[in-house]
């Protein structure tokens, strides 16, 4: 069988290496076709076998290289280039001066233990183990690789060396695959097999980060000036200089495997039943304002169900800490970063119940649902708050009369001018804004002629408290100026938030 596959080779060393599979045969043939003296040069400089293929071959970089061990590759290359079979053991275990072991499947792990894999599937098994530890649920993944800048610099240097020495050769001119992309070619199929997942540009990413060991980082952190200087030297094409720089013996890189899931989103509407709960976590000088926040009460319950790293809370508008959110509730989104799993609708309902039945009943939730990872922009566009409805408890300096009730409710689409309220003037622009009060309705309170409940519907962005008390006359007209007496707001509730699409 092997006789058939090697019509050109008369020697027997190929036979002794046992070309058992088709891929072995293809790689063997590729090795024979490489430019022999450059292969010999590169091997003696300390370039690894897979980098030799990468740099010398004119054929596309072949994933078959993944399944053939480094020592076998070396013997084939040595045979093809008629290089002296140097003590094969030691030269194979030497870290490549270009890829620093990346394509040799050699790396240090987090505990500085050296890991060496014979072939791509061994390497994939190690990576799989690290990925599994993160506990993600996924059935497809995107693979990302990052290598230290030294690798890129080494690559430049070795290419300059080759171009200088073999200027006239056609293969020198062809585009070379980078170490990063070569690793992807080598390990993608084995990884798919061992993870049992598809590969695509999915919302789940596995990132293989190679970095230098600490002492080499120091080496690499030369000043920009030095780097520039060396760069110019390289560009001048002094090959002898490059050869010198290849003599350094490198340590393998440290590999860290990180998994990242794109944010997932949940939507719903929240209620705020307390006048001492802020919408978002509010800390001033290490002191918490209010006893809790809507953000934390909801996010803190969703995050554990997703096994995520963190969450962000987004709401359509906001209310003051002392204002309750009742009625329709206010739309919100929870964004969960790096979630390991996606809770079912059933468990979302349980979360909803848990929040709604909590002992203190500070906050409530309804319509909690999963909305995928792409809905964010859509939600933003379609759902700007448009109108808001409030119930304000108002006191006026004189008793309320029947005719007041009529005159207030007859004011439809009332335009008011509001200067930036004093209470926020320290951090907002001093401006005068026109706002519309769509309608108002007075509800009398039994046993009190100075107090009444004012129901009102306003354009989003209207300052209600200021509309009632007038803010030193800076909002005009105000409830006080309409009734011709001092008006004060005792408390306020939001009863409806109407969105752009409803």
């Amino acid at each position, binding site marked *: 069988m092997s006789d058939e596959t090697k019509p050109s080779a008369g020697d027997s060393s190929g036979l002794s290496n046992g070309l058992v599979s088709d891929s072995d045969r293809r790689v063997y043939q590729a090795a024979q076709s490489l430019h022999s003296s450059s292969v010999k040069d590169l091997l003696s400089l300390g370039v690894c076998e897979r980098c030799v293929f990468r740099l010398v071959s004119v054929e596309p970089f072949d994933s078959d290289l993944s399944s053939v061990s480094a020592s076998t590759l070396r013997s084939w290359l040595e045979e093809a280039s008629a290089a002296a079979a140097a003590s094969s053991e030691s030269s194979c275990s030497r870290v490549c001066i270009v890829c620093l072991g990346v394509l040799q499947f050699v790396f240090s792990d987090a505990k500085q233990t050296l890991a060496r894999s014979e072939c791509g599937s061994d390497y994939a098994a190690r990576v799989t183990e690290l990925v599994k530890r993160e506990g993600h649920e996924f059935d*497809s993944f995107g693979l990302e690789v990052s290598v230290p800048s030294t690798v890129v610099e080494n690559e430049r240097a070795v290419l300059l060396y080759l171009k200088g020495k073999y200027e006239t050769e056609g293969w020198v001119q062809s585009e070379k695959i980078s170490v990063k992309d070569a690793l992807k070619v080598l390990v993608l199929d084995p990884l798919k097999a061992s993870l049992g997942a598809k590969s695509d540009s999915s919302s789940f990413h596995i990132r293989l980060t190679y970095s230098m060991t600490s002492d080499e980082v120091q080496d690499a952190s030369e000043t920009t000036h030095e780097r520039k200087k060396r760069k110019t030297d390289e560009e001048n094409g002094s090959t002898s200089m490059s050869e010198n720089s290849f003599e350094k013996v490198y340590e393998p890189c440290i590999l860290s495997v990180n998994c990242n899931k794109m944010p997932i989103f949940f939507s719903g509407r929240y209620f705020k039943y307390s006048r001492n709960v802020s919408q978002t976590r509010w800390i001033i000088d290490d002191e918490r304002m209010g006893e809790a926040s809507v953000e934390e009460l909801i996010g803190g319950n969703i995050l554990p169900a997703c096994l995520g790293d963190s969450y962000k809370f987004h709401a359509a508008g906001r209310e003051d800490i002392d204002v309750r959110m009742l009625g329709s509730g206010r739309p919100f989104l929870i964004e969960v970063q790096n979630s390991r799993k996606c809770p079912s609708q059933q468990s979302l309902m349980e979360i909803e119940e848990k929040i709604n039945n909590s002992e203190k009943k500070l906050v409530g939730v309804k319509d909690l649902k999963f909305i995928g990872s792409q809905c964010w922009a859509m939600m933003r566009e379609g759902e700007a708050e448009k109108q808001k409805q409030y119930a304000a408890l108002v*006191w006026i300096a004189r008793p309320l009369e029947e005719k007041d009730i009529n005159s207030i409710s007859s004011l439809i689409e009332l335009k008011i001018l509001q200067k930036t309220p004093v*209470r926020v003037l320290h951090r907002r622009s001093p401006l005068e804004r026109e706002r519309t009060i769509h309608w108002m309705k007075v509800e009398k309170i039994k046993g009190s002629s100075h107090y009444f409940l004012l129901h009102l519907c306003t354009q989003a962005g209207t300052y209600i408290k200021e509309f009632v*008390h007038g803010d*030193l006359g800076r909002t005009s007209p105000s409830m006080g100026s309409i009734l011709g007496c001092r008006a*004060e707001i005792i408390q306020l509730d939001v009863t409806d938030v109407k969105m752009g699409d409803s």
Partner: protein
Amino acid sequence: MEIQTAEVANNPETEDTIESTKQNQPEEEVEHCYEQKQALEEEEEEDELRSMLLSDIGELPLSPPSATQVNFVSYFITDFTKPGHDQYIYRHANGLCVIGLAPTHVAFKDEGGITNIDFNVGKSDRSVLKVSGKRKKNAMRSESNTALCKVSTAKDSYIVRCCVKGSLLEVNERLINQPQLLNSSADREGYIAIIMPRPADWTKNKESLITLEEYKEKKELSL
């Protein structure tokens, strides 16, 4: 992919689909039934909201504290540069200071009260400066004795001062056309200016001011 299937199942669009099938429902009875049910639900929600609104109303005092009293701490400066030149400084929790005439200001004692206000004092007209942006560009820097405006009565005129070192954010332009607001509600619509002091300046500045209690005590004694 599990997440994607979940996405389909919970896609917001499915709601729309339900909505449209609802609308296309041919049997009027079903629709009627649905409407009734919805009306009932709405009524229930309304009732619930109503009880939540009303149940939260606690003891109602005869006269509640005003927004000014709740949101500001009152300070005073008396006989500032001249006898009877008494002013208030209402400081908001955010640091901003509202400046105005204290009820014991000498101008109120003149017959007919204040009849005119003029912001054109010192080097510039205080009412012409237009402050802009979050950073309050163009704000005039005031010292505590910087002249803010001049108020006139039938008999005399009096210089009102800034009282606070800081940035002059705005003056009450309404007073130009309605100076009588100074007589009727000097502590609200008749405020004169808003100044933003730097925290460090305020700490020093505060020492030259007296509190509401001290003011009451002092004025009752002298009255």
